[in-house]
């Protein structure tokens, strides 16, 4: 492998890994937000029913 081969390998791995982490974080974030919204709506319905 030539000099540029090593450079592109390093840049590819770094930016690939950072992009993967960013998108996985976004996915976890979205899932958590949906779960929280569901919990809030269930609690809202329960308190409404109690009234």
């Amino acid at each position: 492998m030539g000099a540029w081969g090593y450079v592109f390998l390093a840049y590819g791995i770094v930016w690939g890994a950072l992009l993967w982490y960013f998108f996985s974080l976004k996915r976890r974030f979205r899932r958590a937000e949906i779960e929280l919204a569901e919990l809030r709506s269930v609690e809202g319905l329960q308190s409404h029913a109690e009234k």
Partner: protein
Amino acid sequence: MQPNVTKKRKGYLGALALMLILLGLYWGLVQAPPDAYQGDTQRIMYLHIPSILTAYLSFFLVFVGSCLYLWKREKRDDILAYSAAEIGVLFTALTIIEGSIWGKPTWGVWWTWDARLTLTAILLLIFVGYLMLRSLIEEESRAASAAAILGIIGFLDIPMVHMSVYWWRTLHQPPSILRPDKAPWDNVHPAMLTALAINFVGFILLYFYLLSLRFRLGEITEEIKTRRLDRGQ
């Protein structure tokens, strides 16, 4: 530092980080000249130094968050430490990978048990252990306390990593930029220094953007746990 910034501010931070990263790629791969001895492989430096400095910053925040948590027992400090540890592990692992790729054409080997490399690997293992510890201990407050102690101990490895090139005879070179005897601009080509500075600022902004997302995720997860406990689930 306020990781829980508003969504709009987070957007600006992300956009600014992206702009600097693209500019840094241009300067690092096109504008900066090749090194006189190492040629083009030296361009890996524009990733390698910002990565490890970002990891140091991250573990410093683990240290601060851990100390505050042990002192005040506020969940917010624990979330900060946990978030910073996760991202710090990523940047440390990337530093080791970049260094390995840079080492092959420069030293002729992918890995050597040099003091700097070994201590960086130990740093990574300590914080991988930190993340594992959190998932292994079921009781939340015990897990947070044990992790905080490990986070503080782990941070103490950083001065050793940094000083290792002075304390031991190492294959890893001593610092070229932060030298006590010379100013950076006396030692490094201005275009190389500019490329490094842009990449460094880009990495730091990206780091704070990721940290703000991870911190908010930690807050939401905490709220979900509290609500589930209240409902008896």
